[in-house]
């Protein structure tokens, strides 16, 4: 009975699913633990899909629906690019492309005290980490890593920021290195910050390079690895 129910789930792994699809019947499962990620929900004795995408599985028992969208649903420990929209006495209000604005406490910086509160103008682009993401409250951000160090987090000066889908931002952050970044990195020198919320910041010595990198990334969304490399080569041939 157990193997039967597990196999029904396995049949759908890496398959496209739609809202309303039932992927597992819990009434047939005995003494098994499964973890549900984004895009899945428990509806009585059934696990059903609530977002269109691909059903993914990670050992030992994690299931989620991988999808690509323009809006971002905040999750704890995600690194995102935010735009400061307002500043209050004890926190900054930051737009992270989520359902609600996020809070960045003025003390959530390396060595943050009341005496050295950072000054962020409205419109400043910052690279931050989501530390709390509960449905009933605004997400909370931090400009430090888990050990309290600033690391790569903080305000991003100069450069160019553009938006893409959440699926593409995951692709850019994937390991091994994404083919488009791999191909560009061999020929050009640039700095890049990718947020899981679908925002990408690029900075290079010349605006020319920045534009090439940004265009290459924007064009790469629906291309395979080989197609991405060919596209980068063609772009670089044009500018040489």
């Amino acid at each position, binding site marked *: 009975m157990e193997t039967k129910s597990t196999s029904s789930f396995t049949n759908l792994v890496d398959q*496209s699913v*739609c*809202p*309303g*699809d*039932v992927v597992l019947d819990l009434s047939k499962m005995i003494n098994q633990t499964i973890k549900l990620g984004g*895009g899945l*929900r428990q*509806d009585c004795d059934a696990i*059903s899909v*609530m*977002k*269109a*995408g*691909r059903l993914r599985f990670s050992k030992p028992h994690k299931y989620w629906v*991988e*999808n*690509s*969208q*323009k*809006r971002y*649903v905040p999750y704890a420990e995600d690194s995102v690019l935010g735009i400061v929209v307002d500043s209050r006495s004890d926190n900054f209000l930051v737009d992270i492309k*989520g*359902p*609600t*604005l996020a809070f960045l406490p003025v003390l959530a910086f390396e060595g943050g005290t009341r005496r050295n509160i950072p000054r962020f103008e409205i419109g400043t682009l910052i690279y931050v980490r989501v530390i709390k993401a509960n*449905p*009933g409250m605004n997400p909370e951000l931090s400009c430090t890593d888990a050990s309290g160090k600033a690391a790569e987090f903080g305000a991003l000066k100069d450069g160019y920021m553009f938006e893409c889908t959440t*699926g*593409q931002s*995951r*692709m850019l*952050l*994937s390991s091994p290195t*994404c083919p488009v970044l791999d191909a560009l990195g061999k020929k050009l020198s640039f700095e890049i910050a990718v947020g899981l919320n679908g925002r990408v910041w690029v900075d290079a010595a010349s605006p020319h390079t920045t534009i090439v990198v940004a265009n290459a990334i924007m064009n790469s*969304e*629906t*291309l*395979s*690895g080989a197609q991405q490399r060919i596209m980068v080569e063609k772009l670089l041939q044009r500018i040489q």
Partner: protein
Amino acid sequence: MEYVSPEGLRLDGRRPMEMRQIRAEIGAVSKADGSAIFEMGNTKVIAAVYGPREVQNRNQQISSHALVRCEYSMANFSTGDRMRKPKGDRRSTEISLVIRQTMEACILTHLLPRSQIDIYVQVLQADGGTRSACINAATLALADAGIPMRDLVTSCSAGYLNSTPLLDLNYVEDSAGGPDVTLGILPKLDKVTLLQMDSKLPIDILENVMQLAIEGCKAIANYIREVLLENTKQLEYRRGV
């Protein structure tokens, strides 16, 4: 006027239980969070979804679930005679409300508290069944935007003319004055989210007409599913976590 010929054909050559050709396209509006074009014969509708996002009017914010807003309008050029008031009239307001209530039945609003989802639907070309086409377009746009849904909502109309139940009425059949049933269902859950009828109909005939509309809704659901799955295949190239 004879709407069904002795050979069993309608004015546009369809059988009584035959739907018009349907076509759908996802991602028609690049700036929207989710968008779709849906065509049912000569009826063409475009839908755009924005959200979930911060509520613009703080007075409307709901702490327990998302606020769903809907705006229906018809393009000036959508009908034969140019429309003077394409939106804001009583009919548009009523259809906006119908679409909003139908979509709220499928959106898991409790997962997105204190946020707002805006659905904008515009009829580009009208030839009967605009309400159904709008609901189908809105469903696709919501799925494209990645908004959590219980199930896909699909809608279809059916009528009763010349003692014959007809599926998916066009403008001529719609304006004949006979009964016109618009039905919206959650196909996987087998639940009705919308049921409207103009005119009167005996209960036994209503059951036949409703059954016909349900079959139409399920056929549309299968097509919408195919379109969504085809769109999702682009993820094959993405190696996201």
